[in-house]
């Protein structure tokens, strides 16, 4: 199952990140996880939120450039080597991971957000390996 990730392009200048977060706060959009990829000039703020569509709409209204993209949020056992084993399977099938970041950690389980070069193929691999993925529906219930 795919999930929608909300990405915001932000220039590297003081206070800009806080402005994005305040828009989300005022819209009542809850952030479940985030990753900030930064370069010297700009950053890409990638967010997993409870309502990505609403977040994008509000950000656009406020003049921010944002987009929704398909990512996979996978559930893996929280033990040494489990992510590496999964990646081995993904690699073996020729799917490239563009980026990844952690979502949240329960006592037994961890969640990882993955952006793959071929998300459909990734899903097949995940299913073949009995990996559970979260949907937007799941996210809105957290």
């Amino acid at each position, binding site marked *: 199952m795919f999930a929608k990730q909300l*990405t915001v392009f*932000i*220039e590297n200048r003081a206070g800009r990140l806080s402005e994005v977060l305040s828009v989300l706060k005022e819209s009542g959009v809850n952030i479940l996880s985030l990753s900030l990829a930064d*370069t010297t000039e*700009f950053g*890409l703020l990638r967010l997993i939120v409870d309502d990505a569509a609403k977040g994008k709409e509000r950000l656009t209204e406020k003049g921010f*450039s944002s987009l929704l993209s398909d990512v996979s949020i996978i559930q893996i056992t929280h033990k040494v080597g489990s992510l590496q084993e999964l990646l081995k399977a993904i690699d073996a099938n020729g799917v490239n991971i563009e980026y990844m970041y952690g979502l949240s950690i329960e006592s037994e389980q961890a969640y990882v957000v993955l*952006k793959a070069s071929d998300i459909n193929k990734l899903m097949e691999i995940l299913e073949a390996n009995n990996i559970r993925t979260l949907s937007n529906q799941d996210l809105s219930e957290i």
Partner: protein
Amino acid sequence: MIWNETKECMSRDQMTALQSARLVKLVDYMYHNVEFYRKKMQAVGLMPNDIKSIEDITKLPFTTKDDLRDNYPFGLFAVPNSQIVRVHASSGTTGKATVVGYTRRDLDIWSECVARCMTMAGITKDDIIQIAYGYGLFTGGLGAHDGAQKIGATVVPMSTGNSQKLTTMMVDFGATAIACTPSYLLHISEVLAKENLLDKIKLKAAICGAEPWTEKMHKEIESRLNIKAFDIYGLSEIMGPGVACDCEFHKGLHVCEDHFYPEVLDTATMTPVADGETGELAFTTLTKEGIPLIRYRTKDLTSIDHSTCDCGRTSARISRFKGRVDDMLIIRGVNVFPSQVEAALVNVEEVTPHYMMIVDRVNNLDTLEIQVEVDQKYYTDEIRVIEGLTKKIGHVIQQALGINAKIKIVEPLSLVRSQGKAVHVIDNRKLY
């Protein structure tokens, strides 16, 4: 020393007589050899014999950079290609370059003019001169090269881009003179200082041009390097470097008036202003064969002084430039028009038509940053896509302008949308 005393120290009456004779000949030559001018003259009801002396020049129509663009590439040439021995090109206002052609005689006159300038700077056949202007389509490198060779100096054709090699050779060869842009020379002085080479150089004179520079820069160059620095002016449409140069008294740049007739014009009425008053500089190429131009508007703002200089030269002097009439920028010696950036960005579908150019000078080297906005449909969640786009735009700009620019992608709608004439340039350098 004076290279050509006969011409450079001519009395005003003799000079006027010479200019008159040459203008009459030029107008007749152009009427019969350049269709564009013939039509332009016919449009205002002028025949060649209406021009009897240099005073009649005001009857003649102006020529602009747009005329060169409209007749790209060779439309304004007055001779067939069999007589053209070289072409040079400079930036046009849009995609197309401004192309000029030289006959063998044009090149001889050009090197004669540069020789006069080099002599003004005290350079002789005993000097070793490094030419550190770009060699190629740009007139700076080859123009200075030919002039230095004409006076018999030892020419080291450095071109641009390798400061390390330049400073090493300056020391090893015992170079006594250099020709380059003033900002580059300041940069070179820093490189020399950093390497503790300042007391190992034998440099005594620099002939700098291709960009405007302030009196402050002039003093800084002279004191840092312990040399004399001279200001050389030119533009490819008229010839290249060597149209004018200042002497040791630094009271304006002596124009090679027997070849290039200068007019300083009121920007509102386009009529000549009195000596000392500011106006737009226009030139008529009195002796050029390849692409002669009548009343070519340089868009440079200056004033003129016809009095005899303390150096003994009688040639008219133009003051240090006071600005531009148009929005042309000179970045690292290269002419850049914002319209070129605009024309280049149209070909990049990922960006909006809005842009901002930020020009600055860091460590005496010009920097250009171009800010662009990405079209909404091309937003991405991947860094490498944005970096790829930045590279692509950088390449397009490099191809269009001939210089590298730092491309910065900014947030949507963050670039100023102005009513009427949009502001596309922030120039943080203090050049005038």
